[in-house]
């Protein structure tokens, strides 16, 4: 067990013992290799001590934990006007992307900052399960463990043992991460971290440089894979509308099926709704069962918001979300002059 996991357990134990939190959100080992799963421990759980002892921090904690916050702090609509049950005080492990999403949710009043006890963990990037499987040429990963010096020991079903460097099999979003170290948290755990990436929009610029027909073809091909399962939306921390526009029935904006036009509008509007809120954690991409290249299209909105409005969702609670405000001097280059 690594030092960071040990510190997380110690801290969770201490917070429960001193009664400072009602619940703790962290990671535990998943039932499959190369996976850690989110784990919510309640103060009243019978096996609380055992579960706290099972908390981990490793290279597989890719899930964005912020996705659980809106539901945890949801008001009971049936109790409107009556006394609401007190909102839980939550201890929570956050890496850079989690914290940026938490910040967005706090600003949007989906989670009260006062009820959160954020335990920041510097992130060295998370392993891309698919990239590891690719190295095994389609064979199943039987077990995986982390060794010294950024090594990853993988055993395949056919008995092969592979030593990979985690740096080689990192998620693309981690390589491009500009916020690997959380800031303004309640408690920061020391640990290995990445350097903030530079030149992160190269991929988007390369796509922009293609012809309109090529771009349309790529968009059509990718969205054509979509089966409209909604996994991208469910996994996204900043997609929390109780009624999504895609499922509204009065008016019914778009069909629920896999019709290409409906799927395109679903994705375009979902991407649009992420303007100034998307932290590029790639939760949507990991959740997608069809391997739709959502990064290429979603990345555009992040880039545009930064270039047009000089805004990048970070750790600040003060800045207004870019689409709820304006500047007199905002660009007008797109306006048609007769």
């Amino acid at each position, binding site marked *: 067990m690594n030092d960071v996991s040990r510190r997380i357990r110690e801290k969770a134990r201490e917070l429960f013992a001193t009664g400072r939190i009602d619940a703790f959100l962290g990671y535990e080992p998943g039932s499959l290799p190369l996976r850690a799963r989110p784990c919510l421990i309640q103060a009243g759980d019978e096996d609380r001590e055992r579960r706290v002892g099972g908390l981990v921090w490793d290279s597989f904690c890719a899930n964005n934990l912020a996705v659980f916050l809106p539901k945890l702090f949801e008001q009971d609509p049936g109790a409107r006007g009556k006394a609401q049950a007190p909102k839980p005080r939550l201890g929570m492990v956050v890496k850079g992307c989690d914290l940026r999403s938490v910040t967005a949710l706090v600003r949007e009043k989906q989670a009260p900052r006062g009820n959160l006890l954020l335990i920041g963990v510097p992130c060295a990037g998370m392993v891309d399960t698919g990239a590891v499987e690719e190295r095994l040429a389609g064979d199943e990963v039987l077990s995986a463990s982390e060794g010294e010096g950024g090594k990853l020991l993988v055993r395949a079903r056919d008995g092969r043992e592979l030593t990979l460097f985690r740096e080689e099999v990192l998620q693309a979003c981690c390589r491009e991460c500009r916020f690997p170290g959380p800031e303004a948290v309640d408690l920061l755990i020391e640990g290995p971290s990445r350097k903030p990436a530079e030149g992160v929009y190269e991929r988007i610029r390369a796509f922009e440089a293609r012809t*309109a027909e*090529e771009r349309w073809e790529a968009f059509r091909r990718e969205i054509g894979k979509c089966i409209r399962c909604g996994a991208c939306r469910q996994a996204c921390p900043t997609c929390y509308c109780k009624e999504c526009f895609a499922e509204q029935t009065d008016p019914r904006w778009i069909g629920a099926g896999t019709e290409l*036009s409906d799927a395109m509008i679903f994705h375009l509007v979902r991407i*649009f709704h992420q303007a100034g809120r998307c932290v590029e954690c790639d939760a949507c991409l990991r959740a997608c069962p069809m391997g739709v290249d959502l990064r290429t*299209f979603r990345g555009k909105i992040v880039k545009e*918001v930064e270039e047009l409005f000089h805004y990048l969702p970070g750790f600040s609670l003060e800045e207004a979300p870019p689409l709820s405000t*304006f500047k007199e001097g905002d660009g007008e280059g797109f306006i*048609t002059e007769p």
Partner: protein
Amino acid sequence: MMDQASQASGWEPKIVAFLCTWCSYAGADLAGVSRLQYGPNIRIIRVPCSGRINPLYILKALQNGADGVLVAGCHPGDCHYISGNLVARRKFALLKSLLSYVGIEEERVQFSWVSASEGGRFAALVAKVIEDVRRVGPAGKLVKPCR
């Protein structure tokens, strides 16, 4: 004005125009009262403010077979609701670049400012949008086929 292709097929662009009721709709009214000529290709939808326009409206119009969408509101600084058009301007800038990024022709969706006194500007704007859309031809990219 009509190019040869559209003359041959008889195709005429259908353009949905979302106009803010305080400025641009009044501008369109003035164009009419002033007997200014412009193409009959636009279908006007009156909205309270350009800030009222959800990008979904624009996409929905394209899905339902509009060849082009024009959105017009009060000039910056003239909004009846003080800043509706300024907030809208940010949304439109993003939508325009997102649509162009995925390969939808820039001519399809256009934004402009028209005040209540600018009947001439409205007529010229509509003529320009019709011409632009005519040049890129019938929309097909987001259209949902009928079944």
